[in-house]
């Protein structure tokens, strides 16, 4: 027991979900204990239910039209703003990551720096991905033919279990950079950085519902998300350690042919990503336009 005449008593944060731009508790009223690597109690986190998952999907769907309809430039501005806000809260997140992953302050700081830079990386992709994966196709006829990438819709993301912050951002940012909206299931053991990320997102001009963060038992909430008919894709990163679970979820996802990103082992989340976490959630639309032929014998415009 500390000597309270010298130390000021801190105000504990009540961790809430981040859904539709607001911070609700779980509708089930349940919480579960989150401990650090030594077993010391850190906080109670909401234990989300299938209904929370359902509500998050509704919020994500509602936000999709506006977010995918925003200009790529605007999305880039917002993602950069997230980086700006995060930079300001570095100290907070260094503490949270150190606690969550049992790291020293200096190792945690390296991770937080890398996370901020990861947002900047993806901020710079929003208005370039179309130029890299899209283009005109030289079809053998009088047609202008253009292929362009479009966001697939609502993406369920099971965040990595171990890398509670850098890994989290590395799976969430590429989803929303291209215009998708996300329902994110935080790491079961270390959900707090993800829930705190909601505070950063809420102050970054990110429209409510673009990212929704749920905490709880991964198996319990992943199942209704994988089966949900209004979810277009699912990233199974957080089911990586459990082959049985990953397979189950992939089977459930097949009911409406969700695009599935299977878990891949990642040794080093700080390595520069490629483009596959963005292209996994992009559809390609190819449009044909007649150009009218310009024959030598009179025009056909």
């Amino acid at each position, binding site marked *: 027991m500390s000597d309270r005449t010298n130390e000021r008593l801190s105000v504990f944060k009540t961790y809430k979900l981040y859904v539709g731009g607001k911070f609700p508790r779980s509708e089930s009223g349940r919480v579960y204990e989150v401990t650090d690597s030594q077993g010391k109690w850190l906080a109670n986190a909401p234990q989300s239910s299938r209904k929370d998952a359902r509500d998050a999907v509704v919020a994500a769907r509602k936000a999709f039209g506006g977010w995918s309809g925003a200009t790529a430039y605007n999305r880039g501005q917002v993602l950069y703003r997230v980086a700006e806000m995060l930079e300001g809260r570095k100290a907070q997140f260094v503490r949270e990551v150190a606690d969550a992953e049992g790291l020293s302050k200096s190792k945690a700081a390296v991770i937080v720096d890398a996370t901020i830079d990861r947002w900047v990386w993806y901020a710079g992709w929003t208005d370039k991905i179309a130029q890299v994966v899209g283009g005109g196709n030289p079809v053998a006829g009088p047609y202008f033919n253009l292929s362009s990438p479009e966001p697939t819709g609502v993406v369920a993301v099971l965040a990595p279990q171990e890398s509670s912050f850098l890994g989290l951002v590395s799976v969430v940012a590429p989803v929303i950079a291209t215009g998708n909206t996300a329902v994110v299931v935080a790491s079961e053991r270390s959900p707090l950085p993800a829930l705190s990320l909601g505070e950063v997102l809420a102050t970054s001009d990110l429209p409510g519902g673009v990212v929704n963060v749920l905490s709880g038992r991964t198996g319990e909430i992943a199942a209704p998300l994988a089966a949900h008919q209004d979810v277009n894709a699912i990233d199974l990163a957080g089911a990586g350690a459990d082959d049985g679970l990953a397979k189950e979820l992939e089977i459930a996802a097949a009911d409406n042919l969700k695009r599935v990103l299977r878990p891949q082992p990642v040794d080093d989340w700080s390595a520069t990503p490629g483009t596959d976490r963005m292209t996994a959630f992009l559809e390609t639309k190819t449009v044909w336009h007649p150009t009218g032929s*310009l024959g030598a014998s009179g025009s056909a415009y």
Partner: protein
Amino acid sequence: MTTDKTTDNTNNRSSAFEYAPAPESRAIVDIAPSYGLFIDGEFTEAADGKVFKTVSPASEEVLAEVAQAGPEDVDRAVGAARKAFEKWSALPGSERAKYLFRIARIIQERGRELAVLETLDNGKPIRETRDADLPLVAAHFFYYAGWADKLDHAGFGSAPRPLGVAGQVIPWNFPLLMLAWKIAPALATGNTVVLKPAETTPLSALFFADICRQAGLPRGVVNILPGYGDTGAALVAHRDVNKVAFTGSTAVGKQIARTVAGSRKKLTLELGGKGANIVFDDAPIDQAVEGIVNGIFFNQGQVCCAGSRLLVQESIQDELLDSLKRRLSTLRLGDPLDKNTDIGAINSEEQLARITALVEQGEAEGAERWSPACELPSSGYWFAPTLFTNVTQAHTVARDEIFGPVLSVLTFRTPDEAVAKANNTPYGLSAGIWTEKGSRILAVANKLRAGVIWSNTFNKFDPTSPFGGYKESGFGREGGRHGLEAYLDV
């Protein structure tokens, strides 16, 4: 306002709803009495102490005295850029990106101040600098910032290398925007730069230098050398410059091409134009009129890609010209700092003289000249919006770039003829197509020899969209993924 088809100059400017003066305040920008050159992170005098003055073309008031760079200064600046290149190109792309993002953000923060400054130094309306120039400047830095650490996705192989020191010479028509088009891709790819702004518009580049300092950009990465044509020539010819980028007149562009011949310098040029704005008989007329007006009167027509030739289908010529003249009568010419001004001042006395001479020639050659009633202020450099009708390809005003608010109207009978006339020029920068028929847009666009084609719109720019010309409008592209190529060793 009656729509009397028979009289062509009926506009009586007084109306029931008179707009009161709505001046943007000058107080937001603090213009010092004098500015130096910006070399290696410091403002310094020219080695020989030479200075020149920059004036506001709307009032002829002197805005500031500016150091004039000579050969010694060019040499020192290139040396500073060379020195800085080693570290700058070795930085991880993600770090270079963050410098450029900082610069973009500061430009956004100081956007109003920079817009007022640009309007004062250039003469263009505040509405344009505020709503068009400055947002594009910031957007350009944002866009290229994002490429700095993604170059191996750009389609130029893995880990493409920068060229070294870039010597960049820019014109006076969009001073800060042309600076952004040059500096952003150069820095993102790892080059360092020495940039010479135009002699009539040095100020926004010098404020940009201050922004580089605010952003903590390492010294020597950006160097700004105000001066005249000789400064530019010295820069372009300097043996330690690896890359030359020039935007300006075709005549000077050719000179530069000769200068770098036989060297290893890479060159891109963005030169003049005589853009054809083609209006078909099924065009959405009211929007086409807006497009024509925008095409030739935006920035007082001092735009390389201006739609300076209107090619209208003969069957709708009268109807279109009536609508156009009626619309021109609503243009407001005057104080560029007034938020309701549509047409500002011509950038300089020299440019005004050039426009005047070409317009006189147009009249002498028999084209019919028309302007809406327009009161020109007593001081400053002004030219009323002007139409020439009954113009043919043989007229000077159909061939020579006037670079002013002067539209030459020609007709065509069929799409084939429109295409032939549009292409019948040594230039090839831009063109416009107005029609409701999608297949015609695509067919005509296919055949036009121009680097930028606008369909049912005009003068639209975006940092993601490559811009540049065919033929004597220059070579190389600025903007987009394509715009990286000029600054990479590929």
